[in-house]
């Protein structure tokens, strides 16, 4: 065969069908992601005995619960939700959590970090952040309730260790993730088989980006805690982040004290109040947030999470131990 390298390959050997399928039978990006997620959620419910969904009231877990409701309509969501409560949560998020769970008629399990600190099973860290402390109550709740599949809202675009994880990800009986020896995951044939004591984490939003999540929230009209939209708040500077002045985060140094001021902010992620930063924003509705996220030049965790700044592989280390 003679090769003419100066001919553009697209017109070269004329690969099959260079015209796209008719518009009519094509899913949009959002529809394709939604269908893929619903398929996964249905597979997990069909193949596991006791699934549970991690629900914090954060946007990713809210979207995940919304997808679960769509997957089984007109039946109710056929599993409960689990919240690992750090004790440092925003009160309006807890209120939102309770309201949502009641509306869907789902059973809420709460694993409380505060309980573990009160009875000495966990000790407060010197830096005050409680995010790394969630792993033990989470694993105890999984074992105690015999959950064998745990839906998490993790997305691969969030963080470089999450970018490596399978959609169905096996955990050994110690809750550990072994990133060097993950099961192959072929097509959409998910293999959730596991031995007694092991469980899987299932990530229906694996292929969603922050922008996909917000576009979906806007398109579906999904209610979120108001913290996600621009509001006035008293904040101060710490480690390059804006922290809200409150019970769980107070200015400690002169520089932090001097930086206290009221700003118009919103939260890109919602977690433990002591380590989740706000961003300056005037985006007051989902459509405005979509525009803001599309134009950002900083990742959501980079902008708002102190716990990921502990080291280069902070997330991988936490995940190996059993973290979300």
């Amino acid at each position: 065969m003679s090769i003419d390298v100066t001919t553009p390959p697209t017109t070269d050997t004329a690969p099959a069908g260079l015209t796209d399928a008719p518009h009519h039978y094509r899913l949009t990006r959002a529809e394709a992601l939604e269908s893929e997620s619903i398929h996964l959620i249905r597979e997990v419910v069909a193949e596991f005995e006791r699934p549970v969904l991690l629900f914090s009231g954060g946007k990713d877990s809210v979207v995940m619960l919304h997808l679960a409701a769509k997957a089984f309509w007109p039946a109710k969501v056929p599993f409960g939700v689990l919240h690992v409560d750090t004790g440092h949560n925003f009160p309006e998020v807890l209120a939102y959590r309770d309201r949502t769970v009641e509306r869907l008629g789902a059973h809420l399990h709460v694993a409380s970090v505060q309980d573990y600190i009160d009875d000495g099973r966990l000790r407060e860290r010197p830096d005050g952040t409680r995010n790394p402390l969630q792993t033990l109550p989470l694993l105890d709740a999984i074992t105690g309730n015999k959950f064998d599949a745990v839906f998490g809202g993790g997305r691969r675009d969030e963080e470089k260790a999450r970018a490596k994880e399978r959609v169905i990800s096996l955990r050994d009986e110690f809750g550990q993730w072994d990133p060097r020896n993950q099961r192959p995951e072929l097509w959409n044939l998910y293999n959730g088989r596991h031995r007694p004591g092991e469980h899987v984490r299932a990530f229906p939003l694996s292929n969603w980006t922050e922008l996909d999540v917000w576009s979906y929230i806007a398109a579906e009209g999904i209610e979120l805690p108001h913290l996600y939209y621009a509001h006035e708040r008293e904040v101060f500077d710490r480690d390059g982040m804006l922290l809200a002045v409150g019970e769980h985060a107070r200015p400690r140094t002169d520089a932090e004290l001097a930086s206290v001021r009221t700003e118009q902010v919103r939260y890109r992620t919602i977690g433990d109040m002591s380590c989740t930063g706000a961003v300056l924003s005037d985006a007051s509705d989902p459509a405005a947030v979509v525009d803001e996220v599309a134009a950002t030049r900083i990742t959501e965790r980079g902008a708002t999470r102190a716990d990921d700044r502990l080291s280069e592989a902070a997330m991988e280390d936490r995940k190996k131990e059993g973290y979300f």
Partner: protein
Amino acid sequence: MGTLTDATVDPTAVDPTIADPTAVDPTAPGTLLRLATAGSVDDGKSTLVGRLLYDSKSVLADQWDAIERVSAGRGQESADLALLTDGLRAEREQGITIDVAYRYFATQTRSFILADCPGHVQYTRNTVTGASTADAVVLLVDARKGLLEQTRRHLAVVGLLRVPHVVVAVNKIDLVDYSRDRFTELAEEIRAAAVSLGVPHVHPIPVSALVGDNVVTRAEQTMPWYEGPSLLELLEALPVADDPAGEAFRMPVQSVLRPQGAAVSPEYAEYRGYAGQVAAGVVRVGDPVVILPSGLRTTVEGIDTPDGELVEAFAPQSVVVRLSDDIDVARGDLIAAATDAPEPVKELTGTVSWLSDQPLRPGARVLLKHTTRTVRAIVAEVTGRLDLDSGQPSPADVLELNDIGTVRVRLAEPIVAEDYATSRRTGAFLLIDAHDGNTLAAGMTGTP
């Protein structure tokens, strides 16, 4: 692993010819392409991906700061682009890719899910993982080394998985002085190998991931003899997805929805529908369908979603189908077009990519997972092994890790398998270890 020279790295530079990823509307139709990389270790896959992300302005400021910091800490003079996808501690320490990293980027015309796969033979199973869902694979070849055994293995895997498009990036072309003759020679060799390994079409492109030639922008200065598109231009132009209108309807049943007391409202207490994702084709209300393997016939009474009833559904939508007759339908059954239905089988021949450290021997008792059905199976016979050099089957009765071979499998219960060449979703299967649950093989019904 490649690094960049300082002159080529300026995160603040704005090239007006490059599409602004923020201008993409994620709700626009027809824009998603699933992409995977392949090729031997050290051919520069992660660097190419880093270059693609960097030059398409898909690297955010804090991600860039982080890899600059790590690169500087190692004494490297410039940022190491491979760090954008090599996210595990062990990968960064060893400078290799162990498992697939998924990255997301977009241009004005299309958005991409990119699976950056490892090159080491030891991690072939991870490359099979990344390629199994791909619409297109970018296979890297080092212009100095040419086709290596691992390149051939990946080409064979891609052919086996029937990935619709294969782009061959002849990388490090700068290290052979941008030689047109060398590129022509390699392109010819690649085409010949591709044909023998079952890949009908490849698109060769000369690139340098290190300096960015022909990755996002065309290298008119260094390779005036090349008049084809850059890698990104080609990826933006590739057609995606088969047209469901030309396929027979198939939907494996995932679950039966019978809410009774758990209905969202009392009006649905008596509801009965079958949830699934359409695997192929189009179905309309009123269409005659057959339930397999039972062979019972009925018609589609309704197609439901929480957003309302549909008059038709097509692949790959997730829907709930109601049937006119109250017949026995369960998870694992296939709802198929009555006019064009496949036959259930209790024995199949197929090609497998063997992914386990334990060799496959005839008589092995395994589980076979196909669509939403898992059945007990015995591998009755290993009928051959693919020779990577010739592309021809050679006699074999055992398959070792990373081998591609043909098998005959007997099943305890019938499945409705179709030729993988006709229908990827109803032709694909897994072999699973019944004891520890591990995935042993990726299987495709029919012979290549």
